[in-house]
């Protein structure tokens, strides 16, 4: 099964539509098409859900040793810097 030409045109714009980056005229055209094309509706909705679940991924915590080494590095740098005095 391949996409119809008309659907292809909308297919390219799904993300911009979801991100609210299209003008209202284009949005209306898309919404009108979605009402009569179940394939495109599924395509839009499944992409929307993809973006949503990806956005909701929890962040990893920084391992303690990694965090400690960063602090040490910065401290080392700051004390060197202080020795030179802030005269930039």
């Amino acid at each position, binding site marked *: 099964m391949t996409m119809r030409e008309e659907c*292809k045109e909308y297919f390219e714009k799904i993300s911009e539509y979801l991100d609210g980056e299209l003008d209202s005229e284009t949005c209306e055209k898309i919404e009108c098409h979605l009402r009569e094309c179940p394939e495109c509706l599924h395509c839009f909705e499944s*992409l929307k859900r993809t973006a949503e679940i990806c956005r909701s991924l929890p962040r990893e915590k920084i391992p303690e040793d990694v965090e400690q080494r960063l602090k040490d590095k910065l401290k080392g740098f700051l004390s060197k810097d202080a020795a030179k005095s802030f005269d930039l």
Partner: protein
Amino acid sequence: MNLVKTDSTDHQLIEQFRNGSPEAMEKIVERYEESIFNFGLRMCGQVQDAEDIMQETFLNALRSLHNFREETKLKNWLFRIAANACLRKRRKKKFELERELSLESLMPGAGSEAKFDIPSLSPDPDSELLRAELRDVINDAVSSLPPKYRMVFSLRDVEGFDTEETAQILGITSQAVKTRLHRARLFLRKKISEHYRGE
């Protein structure tokens, strides 16, 4: 002229740092280290690489914060440094080939069925296992994105920068951001759906 709405806490911390307070830098690090670390992890895959990127980012920031004019938000500025650190690291390692994702290959019906099975997020605490599975599936899918698409996806969908900001951070056009983001999402949808269809 574009007036940037700087975060007032950041602005104060930058001022304090310029006036000689090292604690201000510590606070800046505390505010952004987790997102920079996760960005590095997503872009490079290894904790060691993410650590290098985080250190390089904050050391560079420390060196040039005196000259930072706040023409952009502090977070954007830090991510620009981090993104450059990622690019340098990848160039050094040459471990991933950059490849293009064509729109045709991501169209429904191209090599797969036109239906996509994307699970929705259930707030049900009993589904902890399903959530863990979904997290692994997404992480795998993200790490298989070609780097330039992963970069845009990370900034836009994970960090929440808008198109214009992402373009500035990466030094590419807004159109390139939009194109890469769209293809990244299409790619992720395909990968996630393949997993849940048992393909």
